[in-house]
Each structure stands twice: as C-alpha cells, then as structure tokens.
C-alpha cells in the first residue's frame, strides 16, 4: 500500500500508486491541476572521450550521456498524517530519500531530500539531480534568479549575443540557481525555491532540474588539482540534506508567493534554546 495523496487548505499532491512518485499537484485556491512527476536521476560523469579529453570536475560539469539514469523507477513510501503536517516518505535507494511535506495552511509543497554518500565503487563519478517533468509548453524557455534579485530568462541552446553551436546538450544549458528556478506557459507557473545555490536547467520543454549533489573521481585539469571527492567525517562521502519548495500558481500571482517565501528562507528565524529558570539580568 502506498499513500495516494496529501492535502491541506491550499494544495493537493497526488502520488502514483504503482511507483510511489509524485504525480500531480493541484492548487485548490485557483483550481489549477498540473501533472508533475518528480524523481531523482544521476548523470554519469565524463572522464574524457573522443570529442574532448575534458573530464567532469570541480569547475566543469560534463556528463557522458545526455540522458540521466533514474536513481529508482519506483520508491517505497509511507505516510505520516496529523493535524499539523502530512508527509510522504519516499525511499529511492540506500543513499537517496525524500520527504514530501505539506504543513497546515502552507501554500507550497516542501521536498526535503537526503542524498549521499554517493556510491562510486563502480568507478563512475555521479552527479545527482532532482527533475520535475510537466506538460507545460515552455518553448525552450526557463527562468533563474540572479543572486536572488533579478529573474533572467534562459533559452535552451541559445545565446543572445552570438550564434551558438551547442556541443554540450546538457551542460551547455546549465545555469546558476541561487534561490529559484521556474518554468511557465501562458497561464501557469511552476516555481522551485532552493535553500542553497545549485545548478539548474530545463533540458526539455516542461522539464526542470536541479543538481543537488556530485561526487567525481577525476580532476578536470582546470587548476584545483584534485577530483571533487569530498570524503566527509566518515570518509565514505558526504551526505547532504536540503529542501526544495514548490509553488504552482498563475503566472500573475507567482511572484507574490515566491518573493516573500524566498525572503523567509534566506533570512530564516534563528532558533535559540535554553533550559529556562535563569536569573534576571540587567546591563550595568
């Protein structure tokens, strides 16, 4: 048995009963329903090929295929549901999991992912992405922020100031995502807020992806002199945990949502704990 949906006052999130993956998001306030599949994939890192000796490394993202491999085709899931929160826990593999979460009153879907330690025993460097696939007709366009401020339009396989001959179908379309990325058609917009800077792209119409973790075995010969192979405290690779906040709204209303929430993420409340019962204090 796997959970079919979670819902609050504003949103309903539906899951595929067979795969357990996110399948559809509905904005109940605006009666918007969008098929959205979300899953984790990995690009196999290039170590150099006939076209170029360039390996993927700290400076360079260079997958050896344009199509990433799924971390899992189906996930094991379970549901936690109470008055304050509804959560679907998705287990993709021993090193990749996610919680899809809706708090009461919250107008966005929270995806809390945990990725790592990335296995490299097979001798392959791996670059892990979270990909959202929708039916939106996006005409090769997607949007990323410029350091949390201006939003810039990005066009696939296009540069505004010169005629581009694209040689890297994926990497050549990756852009910095400091706080948000979105795709839209004439009516609806799907926005993802990140909790840290990541690389992101839309390599196909209606699709949007963010790179959440990478572990590589070769130096890219750009100066750092070592592969991007951070060992972590336990010397088996880093585990990263982060959040993506997903908004589905009309194009007109989306900025009002993601701008305010991004402020709240960037300048999040600071939690300070205390056992209590301390003496009163007055500055001298």
């Amino acid at each position, binding site marked *: 048995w796997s959970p079919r949906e979670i819902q609050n006052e504003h949103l309903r999130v539906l899951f595929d009963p067979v795969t357990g993956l996110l399948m559809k998001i509905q904005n109940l306030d605006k009666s918007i329903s969008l098929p959205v599949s979300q899953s984790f994939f990995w690009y196999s890192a290039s170590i150099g090929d006939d076209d170029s000796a360039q390996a993927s490394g*700290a*400076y360079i993202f260079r997958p050896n295929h344009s199509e990433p491999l799924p971390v899992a085709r189906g996930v094991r899931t379970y549901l936690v549901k109470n008055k*304050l929160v509804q959560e679907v826990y998705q287990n993709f593999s021993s090193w990749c999991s996610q919680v899809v979460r809706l708090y009461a009153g919250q107008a966005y879907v929270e995806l809390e992912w945990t990725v790592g330690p990335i296995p490299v025993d097979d001798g392959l460097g791996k670059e892990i992405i979270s990909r959202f696939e929708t039916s939106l007709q996006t005409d090769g366009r997607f949007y990323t922020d410029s350091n949390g401020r201006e939003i810039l339009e990005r066009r696939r396989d296009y540069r505004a100031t010169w005629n581009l001959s694209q040689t890297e179908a994926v990497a050549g379309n990756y852009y910095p995502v400091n706080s948000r990325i979105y795709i839209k058609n004439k009516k609806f917009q799907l926005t993802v807020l990140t909790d840290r800077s990541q690389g992101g792209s839309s390599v196909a119409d209606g699709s949007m992806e963010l790179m959440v973790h990478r572990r590589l075995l070769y130096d890219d010969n750009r100066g750092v002199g070592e592969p991007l192979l951070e060992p972590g405290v336990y010397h088996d690779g880093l585990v990263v945990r982060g959040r993506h906040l997903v908004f589905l709204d009309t194009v007109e209303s989306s900025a009002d949502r993601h701008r305010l929430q991004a402020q*709240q993420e960037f300048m999040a*409340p600071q939690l*300070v*704990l205390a056992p*209590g019962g*301390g003496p009163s204090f007055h500055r001298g």
Partner: protein
Amino acid sequence: EGDSAVLRRAMAVAQHHDAVSGTEKQHVANDYAKRLAAGWDACQVLVSNALASISGNKENFIYCNYLNISVCPLTESAGTFMVTLYNPLGRRVSWNVRLPVKGASYSVTDPNGQMVPNEVVPVSNFTRAVRRGRGDATHELIFPASAPPLGYSTYTISKMANRDLRSRLAKRIREQAQPRVDT
C-alpha cells in the same frame, strides 16, 4: 565577550571565488569550514548576550547546529525548556518548529501563556541513518510558531507525564460522550 569580527573575517575569506563555487582543494574547504564554525561560535556568545540584555534573563542559551538531522542534546533530555525564535525580517513570520525529543507528549505555550497545538512524530529511518550515533531522539515535536518583525518570541515546552496523558484522554472521552451545543 561576544565578538562578531571572527565570523566577519571568515565570511570575508569565503568571498573568494573558490569558496563561492567550490573549486578549492579539499584542505582549503576544510579551512573555510573551520573558520566559519569558529566565527559562529563567537557570534553565539554575542547573540546570547543580546538576548539576555533584551529579555532581562541570563539564560544558558544553547544553539543546536544539527537540528536538520534531529539532534539536540537539550531537547532530547530536558523535561522543560524554552525555544526563542529571532526573526531578522521586517515583517511577522510564521514558522513550523521541529525539535528532536524522546517523549510522546508535550505541552507548548506561546509568549502569552496560551497553549499551542503540537504533534509528535517518529524520527524517520532516513534521519536515523544519516545522524550516525549523534543523538538518539526517537521523535520530533512539531508546533507552529511566529515571531514579530525584527524581534523574538519565546515558547515554553514541557514534557507531559503519563498521568497527564491519561487525564487528557479521559477528558476527551467525557467531551465526546456529551452532546455538543453550537452557539
């Protein structure tokens, strides 16, 4: 004495393009992390002093850096504790607080002494797998909180004993047994 200069210096070093993009050697990355951690340590004293000064209470303020993996020695072990939310934004914000705990039931009161609804959920296996011996909280306490613009709110949390649970359950059964009158 608190000192923000240590963190300020570490942040200045971390403006280097290698720190921003992650193109530094591993031992340099370790040094960036060490500098930032030392900076945050010194800033914690500064924030504690400021909170003591503003609130008029000299508490043993504790900062749990591993809350994202449900680790916090204080909340795991204490029967009663306080949570202060400082809001750096110029508008009121609402926030869902999640704290690692070991108990099954808690009472949460807001700054006005009003009870706040809360829930306790089990710590997931995903989290247990990544915290690797750090902390042994079995549950997470969740409650909605809010803080005023550029200000703070303090919530008090108390673990409920079994007898409190029993009396609450008995009260709920009595309420359900009685017909409700809507006015």
